[in-house]
């Protein structure tokens, strides 16, 4: 059992102890609350951020390894922050217009079909032909698609299935000279950055391996880079 009280609760929670989970969320709530207070704004209320943070704390339980000697709280705050950022991005994304969303969907569907057919990402002209749109509409769709939030959750199982990403994370830390900052990202973001910059897979190759669209990979990658360097801009 770890000496860290929160770490002990995390071990119990991981074993299915419901009371330990509740106590853990309670003990982490001041830290989560401080993060939520810093991120809250008119579009993302503090209460919603605190709930997202609590989800992050519980998500951290499964991956926490007390044998590594790290305290649970800083480990859990990375997950909490990841969930809060996902919520904030989702709130920002609602400002994409309906027309933009429709065009983004049409562009993404056409691009996915063309990529599946040829094995390579299409040009704007090819998407326009396939979707029955003009160049300007495709560009509008591409811009709207870039502004949409990355899909939340659901990719971790797929990412876990791709072997070798731990080594790739080390490669990224060396190549991009980001030190330990990569380890501060949520696991999904770590892995997408590792695949693109460590394994040097193209977005299309990552998409093929994960069974998702290139545009989906793009949104995940952009969000991950925003997390990696977001505080420096």
């Amino acid at each position, binding site marked *: 059992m770890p000496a860290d009280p929160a770490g002990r609760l995390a071990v119990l929670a991981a074993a299915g102890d419901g009371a330990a989970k509740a106590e853990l969320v309670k003990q982490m709530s001041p830290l989560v609350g401080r993060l939520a207070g810093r991120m809250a704004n008119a579009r993302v209320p503090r209460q919603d951020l605190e709930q997202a943070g609590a989800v992050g704390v519980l998500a951290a339980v499964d991956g926490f390894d007390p044998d590594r000697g790290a305290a649970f709280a800083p480990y859990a705050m990375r997950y909490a922050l990841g969930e809060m950022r996902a919520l904030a991005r989702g709130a920002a994304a609602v400002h994409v217009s309906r027309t933009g969303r429709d065009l983004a969907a049409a562009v993404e569907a056409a*691009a996915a079909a063309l990529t599946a057919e040829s094995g390579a*990402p299409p040009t704007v002209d090819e998407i326009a032909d396939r979707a029955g749109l003009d160049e*300007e509409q495709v*560009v509008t769709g591409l*811009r709207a698609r870039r502004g949409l939030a990355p899909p939340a959750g659901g990719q971790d199982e797929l990412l876990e299935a791709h072997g070798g990403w731990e080594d790739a994370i080390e490669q990224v830390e060396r190549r991009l000279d980001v030190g330990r900052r990569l380890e501060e990202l949520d696991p999904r973001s770590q892995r997408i950055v590792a695949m*693109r*910059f460590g394994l040097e897979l193209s977005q*299309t190759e990552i998409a093929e391996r994960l069974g998702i669209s290139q545009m989906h990979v793009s949104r995940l*990658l952009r969000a991950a880079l925003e997390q990696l360097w977001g505080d*420096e801009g």
Partner: protein
Amino acid sequence: MDGTVSLRVLGAAPAAAVAEPVLLLLGARAGLDVAALDELVMAVELAVRGAGRPLLIEVTPDDGRLTVAVRPLEPDGLRAYGQALRRLVTDVEIDGDGAGIVMRAG
């Protein structure tokens, strides 16, 4: 739209926002695929991070490629992001004094 398009913008966030549609449109006309276009926009967003002075962004389509020059930038920022930029676009040249960058995609 032929020749070089020049944008002069103050601040990183406005620069990225103004550059995005220009890069997408000119890149589309240069025949870049959507993944290359996407990563070029990401690269420009990264390059202009932390810029506090008015930026000059010059975008030139050229025979299936797009060249983007951005000046003046913070040398420290370019040092931090340089390796990532090299993996996002086809070619990167950083000015000798580290205060500007030329990126090519396509």
